């Protein structure tokens, strides 16, 4: 196993996450094609893009669930793409992941779900773990729900429990996958506020994958848009919310405004359609 790297000795102090020349190819289709970006300490970095643009693939690579075809991902200065499982586990203790549908353990109660990482990775007394669970539940507005099973609470609550579990070990970095998808506007605002609280009050750096524009502009300090169709795999734009709004790129503007007509294709081009019909494509 290759050791994690010289960069771990002296990482630039405020760069938490650095992605360099990231390429992911499925078959012959490049999903990510030379992606580069950095996330600095304290930022809420939002990755957005249409369906099939590679957001989930990128997130899976960022959390070490998938090895990229090429390129590197440095988290806290250590390259997770070449890290051994043992080294990866050590890095993972410093970040949390909030899954799209919570990924809560159905056989456990809400409290047990949040307590699990504490039981596994800390030596603290069970009574203290119980107290931390209550604190995390209070943080996400679910005080008193310790003994409920995930199947007994709503989708929005499950997302909040997922966030509480992701924050259980007080991570320095939080990944969130579509934290507001499928939620009503009020619950979307609640989850957004929780993300903001995590970054502003607790000092967590957040990387959020989303295509909910309202939510993205509400929470982001910096944003990145991944392209799809003819621009599949490339970064369409990166910047602060104000810079993104001011960017004239028609691809980006169509996405922000949610318009059906524009450069983002939802049908094949005439040539591709013809090839598809004739069985050539």
């Amino acid at each position, binding site marked *: *196993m290759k050791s994690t790297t010289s960069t771990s000795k002296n990482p630039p102090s405020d760069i938490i996450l650095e992605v360099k020349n990231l390429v992911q190819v499925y078959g012959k289709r490049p999903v990510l094609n030379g992606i580069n970006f950095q996330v600095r300490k304290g930022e809420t970095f939002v990755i957005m893009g249409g369906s099939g643009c590679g957001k989930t693939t990128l997130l899976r690579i960022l*959390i*070490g*669930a998938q090895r990229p075809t090429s390129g590197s991902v440095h988290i806290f200065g250590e390259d997770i793409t070449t890290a*051994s*499982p*043992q080294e*990866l*586990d*050590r890095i*993972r*203790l410093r970040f949390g*992941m909030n*899954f*799209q*549908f919570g*990924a*809560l*353990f*159905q*056989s456990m109660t809400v409290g047990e779900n949040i307590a*699990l*990482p504490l039981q*596994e*990775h800390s030596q603290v007394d069970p009574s203290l773990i119980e107290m931390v669970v209550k604190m995390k539940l209070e943080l996400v507005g679910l005080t008193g729900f310790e003994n409920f099973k995930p199947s007994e609470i709503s989708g929005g609550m499950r997302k909040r429990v997922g966030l509480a579990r992701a924050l259980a070990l007080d991570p320095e970095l939080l990944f969130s996958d579509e934290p507001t998808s499928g939620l009503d506007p009020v619950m979307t605002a609640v989850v957004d506020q929780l993300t903001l609280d995590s970054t502003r009050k607790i000092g967590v750096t957040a990387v959020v994958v989303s295509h909910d524009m309202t939510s993205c502009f509400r929470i982001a300090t910096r944003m990145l848009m991944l392209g799809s169709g003819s621009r599949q795999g490339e970064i369409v734009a990166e910047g602060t919310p104000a810079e993104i709004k001011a960017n004239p790129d028609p691809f980006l503007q169509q996405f922000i405004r949610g318009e059906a007509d524009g450069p983002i294709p939802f049908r094949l081009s005439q040539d591709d359609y013809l090839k598809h019909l004739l069985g050539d494509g």
Partner: protein
Amino acid sequence: MKFSLQTLLNVEGNGYGLLNVRIFGWILYGLTRRDVLVPSEILRQMIRIGVQALPMASLVALSVGFILAMQSSTELGKLGANSFIPDLVSLSLMRELGPLLIAIIVVGRSGSAVAAEIGTMKVNEEIEALRVMAIPPVRYLVIPRYIALMIMLPCLTIFGNCVGLAGGWAVCASTLGMTTSFFIEHAVHRPELWDLYSGLIKSVVFAHILITTACYQGLSVEGGADGVGRATTNAVVYAILWIIIADALLTGLFFFVL
């Protein structure tokens, strides 16, 4: 020793052989660290996988005892050899039918449940969540189930043998007029200890095949509900298939080679 164990645990890949290597590695590692093997979780799995299978295993063992006694009485009776029925029932159960049938019952009941449970966890991203929380799924999910079944299947087999003998006794006592003392004398005292041990060794091997197959199929689930269904079916089919093949090999080894 630590280096070699870490090497075992860190082997990358998802094959059945690698799952066995990881199980072996974690159990060895667990012997050196107290927090790896969690007694409460192992106990919980022993109850779920083993104790809750008792009623079904009892019913099957009792029926097999009845069947063995009744079938053998029709043929041995013609030869005037009904007195050998207790020996036959006892030896058949201890050496062969006890371990095999109890294993098949547990495959159907608990093996399918384990494959479906782990498979559903995979589909719901719970396995992914464990990995991201730096909790190895094999250590957290497979090891407690593995140890639980390695303990419980031999126990269930011994229990099944006793219940099966009771079934045989019921037939012998009620239809052949055999006394209880005669039945016990022949059924319990006649077989040698090796007959019991060979059956128990078989049940340990069957437990290994059963739980590794079920866990492997569960961890290999791809897709959604159809993937879980396929994994559950595969777990039952492959486990029964390999258990019967292993039974044939072990029988040959124990009674023809050794």
